[in-house]
């Protein structure tokens, strides 16, 4: 520690004495508040919730009690009466689905074998990859079985649809807008501020605003809707159109975040290289592919990771737009846990929350490992 590098004369001035005392202990003092707060608000709740997930909550005279029931809450979600709700309703495994699954399995196996043959094999690496591979296969199976062949995805599948679909679209839009905005245009700051605005609206507010906008009877697009002959069709009754509306709202809010950071990254890229390339007659696509993209890839990967972390927590939009309907088609995992909490199924709620934590952690770690790190390696 460098904390005690300088010793000065003890002084009478109390401010200076506090300063000295602080200097001597700065290592601990500077980081302690953050650590204590995180222990109290993250680690303690995490452990308590773990216990909660193993119990059944019941009201009792003058208070409540928690009966320990082991893994029954989890079993209910994965195999029992809530399976349809969490994993989904399984359909028939068709030929196409089977083929897709086989492809995924082969790809995963190939990646794993390549890793084992490689130079740096460690125990943690093997275990981590096994978990990631198992989860990837499980998710692929889940998708094929619940989305095709007459099945219906549960809150896990729906959450992943939101995360993957939403983040992909938001990234594409954010990047596209950033590229446009990085051109030599006037009023760039105007666009920057305007595009930033959606991020500032409370998600509950966005959800309600989009419910107003998506009203096909008295919303602003009602005449277009009627003109297109859709008055007999309601988006809220079809699973995919309902999910689409949720994702549109999500995209409206979060595209600015990706846009802003990507724009800053593009502005930051080496100018000379670009100009040289343009003089040499490179097309703008070539410039993007060979200069811009490699320069912004690390930022892009990190920002997508941040977005991924937040995307898994989606709740307000489906809750307000559809209350999770039609059926359970738009219910995200956080909403699932929230609804369970509302009826005082605290154990079930914590169990869903824990599954969410598990899925988020594995996804984000895998993304960090396989994407974010790669882009960094490329850079150096």
């Amino acid at each position, binding site marked *: 520690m*460098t*904390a005690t590098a*300088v010793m000065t004369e003890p002084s009478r001035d109390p401010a200076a004495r506090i*300063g000295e005392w*602080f*200097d001597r202990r700065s*290592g601990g003092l*500077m*980081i302690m*508040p*953050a650590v204590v*707060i*995180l222990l*109290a608000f993250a*680690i*303690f*709740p*995490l*452990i308590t919730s773990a216990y*909660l997930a193993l119990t059944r909550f019941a009201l009792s005279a003058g208070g409540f009690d928690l009966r320990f029931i082991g893994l029954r809450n989890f079993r209910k979600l994965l195999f029992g009466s809530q399976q349809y709700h969490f994993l989904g309703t399984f359909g028939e495994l068709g030929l196409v689905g089977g083929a897709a699954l086989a492809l995924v399995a082969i790809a995963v196996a190939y990646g794993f074998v390549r890793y084992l043959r490689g130079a740096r094999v460690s125990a943690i690496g093997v275990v981590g990859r096994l978990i990631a591979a198992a989860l990837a296969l499980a998710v692929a199976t889940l998708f094929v079985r619940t989305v095709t062949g007459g099945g219906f995805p549960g809150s896990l599948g729906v959450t992943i649809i939101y995360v993957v679909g939403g983040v992909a679209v938001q990234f594409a839009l954010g990047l*596209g*807008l950033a590229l446009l905005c990085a*051109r*030599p*245009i006037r009023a760039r700051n105007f*666009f*920057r501020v305007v595009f*930033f*605005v959606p991020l*500032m*609206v*409370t*998600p*509950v*507010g966005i959800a*309600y*605003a989009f*419910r*107003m*906008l998506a009203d096909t009877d*008295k919303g602003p697009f009602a*005449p277009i809707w009627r003109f297109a002959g859709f008055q007999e069709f309601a988006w809220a009754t079809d699973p995919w159109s309902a999910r689409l509306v949720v994702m549109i709202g999500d995209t409206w809010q979060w595209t600015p975040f990706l846009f*802003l950071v990507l724009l*800053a*990254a593009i*502005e930051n890229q080496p100018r000379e290289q670009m100009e040289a390339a343009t003089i040499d007659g490179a097309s703008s696509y070539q410039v993007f592919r060979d200069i811009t993209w490699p320069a912004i890839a690390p*930022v892009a990967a*990190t*920002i997508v990771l*941040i977005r991924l972390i937040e995307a898994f*927590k989606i*709740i*307000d939009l489906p809750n307000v737009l559809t209350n999770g309907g039609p059926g359970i088609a738009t219910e995200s*995992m*956080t909403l699932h846990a*929230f609804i369970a909490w509302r009826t005082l199924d605290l154990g079930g*709620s914590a169990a869903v929350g824990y599954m*969410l*934590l598990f899925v*988020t952690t594995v996804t984000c770690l895998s993304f960090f490992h396989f994407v974010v790190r790669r882009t960094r390696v490329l850079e150096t």
Partner: protein
Amino acid sequence: MTARHDRSLRQRLFEPRDLVSMAPVTKLLTYAGLFAWTLVVLFPLYWLLITSFKLPVQVNDGPDYLPFIDFAPSGHAWRYIFVELGNDTLRPYFNSVIIALGATLLAVLIGSLAAYALVRIEYRVKVGAVVAFLVILAGVVWAIAVQGLPWTLSAAIGGALFVLFMVTLARRLRRHLGNNDILFWIISNRVLPPVVAVLPIYVMFQQLRLLDTHVALIATYTAVNLPIVVWLMRDFFATIPVDLEESAQIDGASKLRIFFGIVLPLAKPGLAATFLLVLILSWNEYLLALFLSTANAQTMPLLVAAQNATRGPQWWYMSVLIVIMIAPVVAITVLLQKYIARGLLIGAVKG
């Protein structure tokens, strides 16, 4: 001028005149794209704004697009929110201001300190100590929840056990964690879904008799936003050359003085961006506020959600509330806008 005459119409439309400008068609498409998205961004806000001036009948008969032409604007919703509800609007509003500002300042302060420390001071935390701490914490939770021990007693026993462990066994342990591990741990806390953490937090504040107070919400928002602050600020501090601090140290300035006098001013863009991001997140937070506040500390997002009554959503009132919620944040953003992008960028580049 002559160069232009040499070019065909096609060239003039599709090829740029020189390296710094764009060809007319490209320019047109660029502006078209940008304005299209501007429309996408602004239209929902415009709709909120005009809805706040509509009568219920006008909303239900809708859609009406242009005030004064399609419908006669009415201030009834604004009157209801500010006059009839009066304090019931202003109280949550000021709650939101106090809580968001308080939490943001605290999170930025505590987070910056930690981030700075992680850049400048080398830490070695023993793995064994961490494991022991977690085991003891789990034991304490078990004792409270299952055995029904009072939490004060359990916490005291747990604390004593941990100290005992640290002064006896801990010395023998060798494996330790470095700064990067600590950083990773801090950031990973952001992954925790609020829905998992909120019940224990509720019980914790209930035991401390702090439910439905500003303190509870400020503390919670500080905690959930700390990871972001540490993440973004660490890289800012890393870009600040260490020489300045060293010379100040030789001059006898204390660490605190260096931090507040030299380091923080240098990190202003990062601070501004982080401040704004955390402010927005705390200002708009709904789920935690729903659990932790009942009346006194109720925040604005709860009030917005509450307009969805059994008589159907009260669009006009809700629109007023959303508009007055967005306005101050937009103002701050315009003020801080030149810092935002730069601030976010550095965090993301190095994170």
